[in-house]
């Protein structure tokens, strides 16, 4: 996470510097102009490579007669209307929200109290535990999905919201614990002790002093967890069998694989609806990520 943060702050500083420096081509040697133009061409090509694949999604989502390939759209919001009024597509969105919000809430609730314990208590095996949970994340998800599926079948948690929410919350918990431990570390012990002096219990101090000061860290953890659950494909594919429970990822895959009767317009519209929450969340929470890099508001 710290890398993202460094990236953001770098951008900030350079934007302010850039506004003061003179324009790019004024009074430069011809050689430098050529060099800079080439570099502009390179970055434009790179940006185009990154953006062009989205052309079909965006154009087809607003096209009443969308096909599987790029074409000039006959502008209409019909596809979105059909997505929300159809019998089964709104269900996909609701399922995605239930699973992602449920898993994120559980993840943050456990992460907050767990991170507090990891930050404020000294006990044997603390460091070992911290590194063990980080190391386990090295295992690629496809390698453990088979065993996970069998275990959930034996616990009768397969093909249910609860099972998937527990699995997803657990999968992101190591990152949340690491991130939030850093956030709690940044709150000075004195502030908490002052609250104890004023008659707060340990739990009361946590609730009234620590948690309110965790904002930026919580935002970062929430974003990371939500995005990974929202985008996950493999886990719901394996754990869920009932179409009633499918999130958007699986619904899109099934709709796309039904080669004969694909409704391309609705498919593109669902994909756009599916990609908006993580994209918006990322843009909104960029600010919080920046703040959390400053190590909590209290240090200043």
């Amino acid at each position, binding site marked *: 996470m710290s890398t993202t943060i460094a990236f953001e702050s770098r951008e900030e500083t350079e934007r302010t510097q850039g506004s003061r420096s003179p324009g790019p081509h004024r009074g430069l040697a011809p050689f430098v102009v050529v060099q800079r133009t080439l570099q502009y061409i390179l970055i434009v090509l790179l940006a185009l490579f990154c953006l062009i694949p989205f052309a079909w999604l965006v154009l087809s989502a607003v096209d009443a007669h969308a096909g599987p390939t790029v074409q000039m759209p006959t502008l209409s919001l019909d596809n979105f209307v059909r997505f929300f009024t159809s019998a089964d597509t709104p269900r996909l969105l609701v399922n995605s929200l239930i699973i992602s919000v449920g898993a994120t809430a559980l993840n943050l609730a456990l992460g907050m109290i767990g991170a507090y314990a990891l930050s404020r208590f000294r006990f044997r095996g603390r460091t070992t535990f911290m590194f063990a949970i980080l190391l386990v994340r090295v295992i690629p998800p496809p390698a453990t999905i*088979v065993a996970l599926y069998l275990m959930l079948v034996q616990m009768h948690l397969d093909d249910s919201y609860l099972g998937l929410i527990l699995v997803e919350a657990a999968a992101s918990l190591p990152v949340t614990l690491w991130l939030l431990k850093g956030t709690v570390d940044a709150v000075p012990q004195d502030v908490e002790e002052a609250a104890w002096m004023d008659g707060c219990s340990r739990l009361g101090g946590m609730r009234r002093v620590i948690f309110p000061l965790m904002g930026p860290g919580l935002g970062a953890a929430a974003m990371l967890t939500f995005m990974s659950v929202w985008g996950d494909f493999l886990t719901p594919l394996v754990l869920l069998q009932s179409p009633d429970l499918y999130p958007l990822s699986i619904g899109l895959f099934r709709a796309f694989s039904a080669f004969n009767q694909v409704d391309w317009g609705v498919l593109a519209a669902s994909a756009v609806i599916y990609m908006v929450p993580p994209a918006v969340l990322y843009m909104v929470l960029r600010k919080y990520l920046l703040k959390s890099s400053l190590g909590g508001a209290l240090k200043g």
Partner: protein
Amino acid sequence: MTTLSVPSARKRRRLQRRGLLPLLLGPSVLLIALFVIAPAVYSLYLGFTNTQLTGFAARDPKFVGIDNYTYLLSSPDFLGSLGRTGVFVLFSAIIGQTVLGMLAALLLSRKWMRGKGLFGAAVLLPMVVPEVVASLAWASVLSPRADGTLNRLIDLLGAQPVAWLQAAPMVCIIVVNVWRGIAFAMIMFQAALEDVPEELIEASRIDGASARQVFTNVTLPLIRGPVFLYLLLTTITTVGVFGLVYFLTQGGPGSSTQLVSIYIFEHAFEYSQIGLGSAASVVLLVVLLVLGLTYVRLAKVEV
């Protein structure tokens, strides 16, 4: 009144402490142990059994020793998928993402460049969207029809339309994965480049070094640690890539894009050979471990 109550409150807290720790950390430990660590351990065990999802062996799984492993290591099918995963990681992660990510990071570190926010956002977008959306977007680009995006582009150059996912499936999934991973490389390298002292670069420029010489002799050695850390992380994530490829090709045509992740999925859930799938997972983990240790050795990072 308050002075009297403080010591007693402290004592109460000390007593609470012992009970509080399991209460606070317990749920997290339980959830991670149950859904993250136990499956890893369980798949180690399953690899030594002939567990099936359906059929006779499903009711009565037996311990079969290293049978699964001897089968896998002599199966051209599995070794082929292992090789494809190797090629996929090498070309998409280690070469493609690293080179383009470094390029993006270097270009966006130019002080004179305008529109950095916009270019940065464009590079970030492929990483931010869910993998299913990424695959769907590329399905339209690689469409075999004459009006598929890529076929239209090569039509401008006068070439005939190509059924990309049939003609060059591995190249397709490598390009798609490069596209998705540039942003992560860029973010990692931007952070690393920021730590390179500017005076050092200016000094070598004054001494007459060319831009390329500065990069290979000054910048690169200084960011060696972060670069190897990035290579380690991207190798781990790329070995775990499943949805992006499965959505586009489902391992086909034939088994030409069957990575190990897809091999595991197919054998465990389509042929219901849970034991074999688990053994394949373990082989994958061992390969990953060897790769990881190699990087650590190469980077000379103290762990």
